[in-house]
């Protein structure tokens, strides 16, 4: 019985392809887009002592040159940046060079890999097949309150003419409502997605961000949720809540060829 339960636990979501170091969204791959998130085999964050080796190794597996990677400083705000060829390599190997004042990145350039790093916060992947525009989003509770997902979609729309009905969205691993106990201040910021259970308050980041997308016209059938809770699945993913200072960071990467 125990073996069966473990097998079920490790079975990947049907919307995903699993490899040794990452999961990839099938629907994106079918359109020529790599949208993937790493597991805990490699710490890919800025504080990793093996940052260059780990990023080189991981990105090579996805067919990306690590020196091209563009990352942002992720200050947990609502800022979004549009990235062009002139930004290639920003944040590839140093936090100091990462794109400032934003938690989401958008580009219409092929072969320009964008990434965010998480260890409980939600990552979102966006792609417009019609306009060939991609985005990646880092959504913790404060960025979610600032409307980071909505802001990203609005900028994709205003700058590139992306329509909500055409857009595909992938939801990466995150601490889910089963485990994400929150403070009163955080609770007071949200009307939806707050769950009271056994005298404690929990937040559903996935529901709130999905709700922002749906309210803007994104179709439910175009939203692909990996379903992983980083705290429940700490065997496979980093969780800041579980591990504290020792937690590494997963990379959520998107690029189209």
């Amino acid at each position, binding site marked *: 019985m125990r073996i069966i339960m473990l097998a079920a636990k490790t079975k990947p979501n049907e919307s995903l392809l699993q490899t040794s170091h990452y999961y990839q969204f099938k629907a994106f791959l079918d359109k020529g887009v790599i949208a993937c998130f790493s597991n805990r085999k490699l710490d890919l964050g800025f504080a990793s002592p093996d*940052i260059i080796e780990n990023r080189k190794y991981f990105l090579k597996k996805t067919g990306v040159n690590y020196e091209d990677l563009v990352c942002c400083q992720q*200050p947990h705000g609502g800022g979004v940046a549009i990235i062009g060829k002139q930004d290639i390599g920003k944040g590839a190997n140093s936090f100091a060079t990462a794109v400032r004042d934003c938690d989401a990145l958008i580009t219409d350039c092929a072969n320009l890999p964008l990434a965010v790093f998480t260890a409980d916060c939600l990552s979102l992947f966006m792609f417009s097949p019609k306009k060939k525009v991609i985005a990646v989003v880092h959504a913790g509770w*404060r960025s979610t309150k600032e409307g980071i997902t909505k802001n990203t979609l609005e900028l994709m729309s205003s700058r590139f003419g992306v329509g909500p009905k055409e857009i595909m969205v992938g939801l990466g691993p995150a601490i889910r409502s089963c485990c994400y106990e929150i*403070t009163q201040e955080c609770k007071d910021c949200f009307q939806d997605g707050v769950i009271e259970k056994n005298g404690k308050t929990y937040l559903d980041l996935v529901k709130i961000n999905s709700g922002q997308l749906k309210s803007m016209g994104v179709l439910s059938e175009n939203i692909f949720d990996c379903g992983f809770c980083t705290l429940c699945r700490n065997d496979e993913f980093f969780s800041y809540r579980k591990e504290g200072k020792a937690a590494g960071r997963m990379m959520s990467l998107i690029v189209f060829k």
Partner: protein
Amino acid sequence: MLIKKYSLEFLLNNKNINQEEVKKSLLEFGDNVDVADTSSNGQGSLKIHLETIDPATIFDVCAQFGRIGCIKVNEII
């Protein structure tokens, strides 16, 4: 192995912010931690300056206390 160290300076804004609580939380993650109260007109604000090898975690921690702004980052090693 490559360990980079950064000088990080930013404002942390929240009307109910607690200077001592923020400083206590940051001591674990940085050196030369300086947290100055720059509140004015009832708007709570702290100016934070520290050196750290883990700036992403500094933001993760501080985002629990308030809104981060006016960021300056420099690599020092």
